[in-house]
């Protein structure tokens, strides 16, 4: 890469963060990584713990549920994980379109970058309204 000569060179630097104007395409990119890593480091270990607790018997499952019930922790984590999933899902679908070489026009890119988090919020809200209406959690 060009950086091999280090700071001694006097070549123009690429614009850095403080020069960029904040835009929805930056937000959706950052959210994609944050939600993916969040699910990988929090959601998936919880999923495995849940399956392990079921397999280990009722006492083990009750212990899992006691953590879930502690100070709404389960709801906070599950709402966060469900939003993370839908955000990552819609953002991933956007990436499939970009992979095909489409959607790079400025207005189109901007439109879908705004649509992705909005769709994720609406889907998460709809799912929890459905859960609340059925009173299963």
């Amino acid at each position: 890469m060009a950086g091999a000569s280090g700071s001694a060179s006097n070549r123009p630097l690429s614009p850095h963060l403080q020069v960029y104007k904040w835009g929805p395409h930056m937000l959706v990119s950052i959210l994609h990584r944050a939600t993916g890593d969040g699910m990988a480091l929090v959601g998936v270990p919880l999923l495995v713990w849940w399956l392990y607790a079921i397999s280990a018997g009722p006492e083990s499952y009750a212990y899992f549920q006691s953590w879930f019930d502690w100070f709404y922790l389960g709801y906070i984590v599950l709402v966060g994980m469900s939003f993370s999933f839908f955000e990552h899902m819609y953002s991933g679908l956007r990436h499939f379109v970009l992979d095909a070489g489409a959607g790079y026009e400025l207005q189109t890119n901007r439109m879908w970058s705004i649509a992705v988090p909005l769709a994720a919020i609406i889907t998460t809200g709809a799912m929890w309204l459905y859960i609340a209406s059925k009173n299963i959690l």
Partner: protein
Amino acid sequence: MGSGTNIGRVRGLGSAQEGAHHWIVQRVTAVSNLLLVLWLVFSLIRLPNFEHELMVEWLSSPLVAVPMMLMLVSIFWHLRIGLQVLIEDYVPDHGMKFGLIVLLNFFAIGGAALGIFSVAKIAFTGVVA
């Protein structure tokens, strides 16, 4: 980076000829994650409750146990590649980077094994307790 010169190839700076492999696997597992996690979400919210007895009965069905195991493979494969990119982007020290990627592999394979074994145990032993 040594794109094809002899000394570049000797130093291992040339193309490894498999640069697109992770890229493709990340997308294939993205599609399977899409199908399998949506299956999990819709299955879970349609259950009447989450009591232990029902969970065991639900997971004992082959039509639940099999997609659950496939989902674990798909998810852990996808996250292994994703977290490797995270490590490669933010950890500049080569030794630390190497060690973290080894830990990531242990986490991904160990987590998937624990999850799959748990599902298998539920499916094969059914309601015992």
